[in-house]
């Protein structure tokens, strides 16, 4: 009896183990240790990148407000550039960018632990390059949103927080010049790391990063570098109605798109301009955006639909038709980030800014010809380039940055008759978004942008 009890007691004691693995979680510093897991970590990075920036188009003049906006206080305020609404949007965008950067840092810190199997070297190199590219993309967006326009007067002003460690820190903002330098290095490293050119436009690839860097140079004022990057990419390029429709109707990545985010499971369907409860559009494209009959972009971009105005009169307006197969199509669609057409506009703007009028016009006409639009025969101005750019990219998140980069003002119109109600001047402080107050409160080294 005595012995039996003793044995039972001993047996029970030896079964007392404290090293318990957690079944649905993976614990430890070396959790990311092979290429398939690195790939899943990368999927987490793509997933957390903030994709829906429709509100930037609302702040720009891509849209006119519809009569239905009258009951939607927050959209009305957002359209009017009210401080609180911009603050709210800016707050909500900052965290996901840094969440993405943190996930990239976690992946990058795991590289020494990753065992690369036979035949996985190329895939691993591609993952590394993509991680660099997404980090560059994050910083590029953060600079464009939260820092002033780059010029000699601004280059020492505050840029973004450059974050490389996985621990809680209070980091100061780097200067704008420093931020651009890091951004350039990240892009160049990414370009160098890609094993070869690939055509998977749903992942960052060598060509897309080159285009991204060209865009960075345009913002940074390094126009010749931008042109030099665009040129080889445009060699032999031909776009036509077929390539355009294949993308916007079937969402197949061919010549038109260098990089797009794959459709999200969460709806990205311009939900800020569409009221899901009542099924109405809150905005439709600026009525100044029109296409000639031969220009095939028109039928993809705009669709006529009636709406009732204040007096109950049905008016026909053009709604945005991109991302949709029917007017109330709510299915998730891919989100193009770098389209081939962008290269022409980067090049044309850079050429114009370097004073090469003829070259700039030729570049612009090259694209317009492919789009079956009439071409420019006289000298072009920056406004012509920007207008053509708006026609190409309406509703794709470009216009706000175009206006900011070129320090243009933007008009606000009423929802009934489209009379101008106010103008947001180019000097307005709200072009530079505020850092979230959580950042300012918790990070004693971070300083807020002026006047916020």
């Amino acid at each position, binding site marked *: 009896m005595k012995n039996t009890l003793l044995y039972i007691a001993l047996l029970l004691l030896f079964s007392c183990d404290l090293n318990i693995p957690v079944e649905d979680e993976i614990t430890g510093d070396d959790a990311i240790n092979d290429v398939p897991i690195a790939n899943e970590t990368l*999927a987490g990075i793509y997933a957390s990148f903030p994709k829906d920036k429709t509100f930037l188009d609302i702040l720009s003049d891509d849209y006119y407000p519809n009569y239905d906006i009258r009951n939607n206080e927050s959209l009305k305020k957002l359209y009017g550039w009210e401080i609180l609404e911009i603050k709210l949007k800016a707050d909500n965008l900052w965290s996901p960018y840094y969440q993405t950067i943190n996930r990239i840092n976690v992946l990058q810190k795991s590289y020494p632990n990753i065992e690369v199997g036979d035949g996985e070297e190329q895939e691993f190199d591609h993952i590394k390059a993509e991680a660099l590219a997404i980090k560059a993309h994050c910083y590029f967006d953060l600079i464009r949103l939260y820092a002033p326009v780059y010029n000699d007067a601004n280059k020492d002003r505050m840029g973004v927080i450059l974050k490389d460690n996985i621990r809680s820190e209070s980091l100061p903002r780097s200067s704008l010049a420093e931020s651009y330098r890091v951004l350039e290095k990240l892009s160049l490293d990414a370009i160098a790391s890609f094993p070869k050119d690939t055509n998977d436009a749903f992942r960052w690839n060598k060509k897309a990063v080159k285009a991204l860097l060209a865009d960075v140079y345009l913002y940074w004022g390094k126009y010749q570098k931008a042109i030099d990057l665009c040129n080889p990419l445009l060699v032999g390029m031909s776009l036509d109605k077929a390539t355009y429709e294949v993308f916007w109707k079937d969402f197949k990545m061919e010549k038109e798109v260098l990089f797009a985010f794959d459709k999200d499971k969460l709806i990205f369907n311009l939900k800020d301009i569409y009221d899901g409860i009542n099924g109405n559009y809150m905005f439709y494209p600026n009525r100044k955006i029109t296409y000639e009959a031969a220009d095939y972009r028109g039928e993809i971009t705009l669709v006529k639909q009636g709406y009732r105005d204040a007096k109950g009169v049905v008016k026909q307006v053009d709604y945005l038709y991109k991302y949709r197969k029917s007017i109330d199509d709510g299915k998730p669609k891919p989100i193009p980030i770098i389209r081939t057409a962008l290269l022409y506009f980067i090049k044309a703007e850079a050429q114009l800014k370097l004073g090469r009028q003829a070259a700039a016009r030729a570049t612009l006409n090259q694209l317009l010809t492919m789009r079956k639009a009439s071409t420019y025969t006289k000298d072009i101005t920056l406004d012509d380039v920007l207008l053509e750019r708006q026609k190409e990219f309406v509703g794709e998140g470009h216009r706000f940055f175009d206006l900011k980069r070129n320090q243009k003002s933007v008009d606000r119109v009423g929802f009934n008759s489209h009379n101008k109600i106010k103008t947001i001047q180019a000097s307005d402080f709200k072009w530079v978004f505020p850092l979230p107050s959580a950042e300012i409160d918790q990070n004693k080294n971070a300083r807020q942008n002026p006047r916020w």
Partner: protein
Amino acid sequence: MVSDVKGNPLAGVSIYNDEKTVGTTTDFYGGFRIKVTEGTVLIFHTMGYQKHRQKITAGMLKLNIHLEEQRIDLDGVELVARSNINDIDSRKATGEVAQIDVKQMINRPSINLMESLQGQVAGVSVQSSAELGKPLKIRIRGTSTLSIKSKADAKKDTEFLDNMANQPLFVVDGQVVSPDVFANLNPNDIKEMKVLKDAVANALYGIKAANGVIEVSTQRGIDGKTQYRFNARHGMTLIGKPNVAMMDTHEKLAFEFASKQKELPGYRYSEEYIRLIHGSKPDLMNRITEGQRKLDSLKQINTNWFKELMRIDQYSTYNISMRGGNEKNRYYISGNFTHQGGKLEHQSLKRLSARLNYDLQLSKKLTVYFNSSLTVVENNSPNSSSFSPASLIYRLNPYEQPNSKTYLVSFNNRRKYGDLYNQFHKKEDKYQFNFSTNVFWKISNSLDVQSAVGINYNIDNSLKITPRTAVSQLKSAISREKRGVVEKGKNIGNNQSLNVRVNYHPFMGKSQQLFLSANVDYLKSSGNAVRIKGHGLPSKLQSAAGINNDLTGRFDTTTTSSNATTAQLGFGFSALYTLKKLDVYGSYKADASSMMPTEKRWNYFWSVGMGYQFLANNPMRNPWLSSLKLRTSYGVTASLAGVDAALVHPVYHYGGSTETYLGYRSFYLKQLFNKDLKPERNATINVGLDFQFFKRLNLSLTAYHRRTDQMLITVPIAPSNGFTSQLKNIGVLQNQGIEITLGGYFINNKDFAWHTSFNASYNQNKIIDLYEGEELFLSGEEIPYPTYKEGMSADVVYGLKDVGVSAIDGMNYYERKDGTIFNGAAEKAKRSDFHILGTRTPPIQGGWHHHFRYRKWQLSVQLYYNFGGIKKYANTTAIRDADDAYRNGFKGQLAQTWLKVGDPNKKYKTLFGRGNNIYQNLGYASTSTVGSTDFVRINNISVSYEMPTRMIKKIAPFFKAGNFMAQFKNIATFSGFKGGDPEAAELIGQVQPIITLGVNFNF
């Protein structure tokens, strides 16, 4: 009447004659009745007390027996076998262990055992939300740490996390159980309940017990004639009264007129409005008459929505138990069914429980105890996290009716009454199974070994249904096939515990004693949860089988699964040395938790205590003070309550179905871990004095001081770190307080007895140090005052000093600290404008209980009280603006609203004044929106009448005793608080009074 030496009645004492031919047991008030012949020797025996033999002589009609607590005699005769392995005698000598009066808990008609603890013991606070089936907040000696929470969590989650970090450990028969299992115990099965409050008492349990321990020992079999007990109680649950009275039709229509909103009947049908619109039309007078007629017809209706929506339900409980056995085998079997109806339709709680306890004495030296219980709980509720039908009471207008088919004015988005009904239904089933074996083995007179092995298996099923007809589903964005939401969850919890203890008590002569004890304990708990959530519920099917799996996008069916296991291993040693009147105690415990990384796994605790008996029953020296004992202790414990592994070291997980990219699942870091994290460290000093006066009145005074170092809390961090919060050791919190318990008999004779017990506790907490600066802000930018500040209490309420509504512009004005005032519409309140209004948790809490016996009648009255706290009124229904006048407001609001220039001393601002800041300022607590939550509640009144023998024999000849009883629970609350019930201070959910009648038979 049988009692202990202090005069506390002892229930369940076996009484039998030498031959065991006659026997009975005492009832809850220690009373018994037995028919024996002269010369019989009666034996009184119960566990934990010494056997008492009493010879019956002629004319001995009334017996008062005092049983002495069994201690290890100096001769080392008998070691006490206990069903709870950690309930060792030595800790009692110096530690703070309070006994709970179980019979009070049985008498209170409540389905939740935890609720019945209210007001029973000094220093134990139980806060009920008054909503059936919702977990209660239980704390021993205040909040020891701030809750580990993050800003983004919903209120329900923060409450859950706060409970995880601060609630005590529950132990039933030596086995650790979840608070939920404790709450569902059958009170009739409980023999003894103890509360362990200080470090000396808690140290034996180690890291699990940093917040105190509640120990339960269940009923056991007896060595004697089989006894049966049956009781049935049936009654009704009442609706109580509404938390705030609302406007009647007359006032509401007048208020609508004042609001000048043309959509509202009070203005729409008024002469003023009709003249304004139709002033020039020829049929103006007809229209005015028609408007008046409509108003008159509305005035005929005056719906009391409280009475309409709340309902009277039933409370019933049936209990049967049996116990018996012989010297070698003893058993206790019981079954219980309890049902408590809620105040809302489809709200109820049912519990069915069964218990079998079996003791087997294998030899004089070896006893085995088996405990098993099974409990089934069913909980139905119409309350979702965002909606309760009770909220309609404070919204619907008095001129609206339940059966009307028209759109409601009180919902400005075209809703009919029928649309609001049946929004949500939740059903939870719980199955709790418990089995444990305790072995007590006496190796020699001075050495024994005990072991306890137990398993606790809980299955929780839940089904939440939002029907396809619910308002939230009727949107054009949700097409018909997508309407309706089902969420089905299953959680299997499993606790395995093992505890082996060796006690050594060598014989050391007459004047000194030594008790040594060592133990090893291991606890492994796991939770395995699966959840399915899907959309598209067909109208006929109300189950998870109805999910439409073809839906995509955000209507996708989602499944989640989690399986977390944690384990704790501990080694403990304790020693008590007694020299005459002096007790010296010390304990040491090493504990390891699987949650911490290997290098930081072990935590060490120790405690020392000292007790001294100044007087002991010496009537010669001191006629009124019968005994006085001093107890002091100091101890250090650590706590990891509420911490999970992902907060300490890198833990990765896979994202949900919405977080995939190109078909790959996303894999990422769950939390920003903190590798520098340390467990919280609690140091407690306890000083207690136990007095006994006149041999029947006991007074116990205790003072304590507890310092929590390295307090853990989730703090916001800069979002540029990729996460917005992180768990950190942030500072030092101090709790100190005093506790008073007074109890005993004032009068105790054959016909009349009056027993009273009173307890009061005072607890105050203070933040001593914050490691990073003097203040901590957790509430985000909108709140200008700190959440925690050095030198202040952790639950201080900041607010504005309201100087009232200006007679000139009808706006709220507030006073700054320098005495100047500012307009609440024009200015934002600044940091410096906030005053400290008080603390949320009432520092003074306690109970007062009286028990009277007059011949065959017994009356017991229990009071529960709270003093010193303040809370903000739940005043969400106050109408601030004409735009909001479509819903109903507080009774009397019209008279208190500023309507025109010159209206003096109004409470509510003008209905038309706006301004960016006024709503923000009104949202803060202010001197006019907080109130003292002081209250005294009559928790329970219980009356019973013992049936005369003749009557019992008439009912059934085999019945031995029986009584009738009636209970009245929560029948009155005295409080000046104006914002709902002072305990919960919320609009939804108020106290539910219960009245029951019942019978009790012993046979």
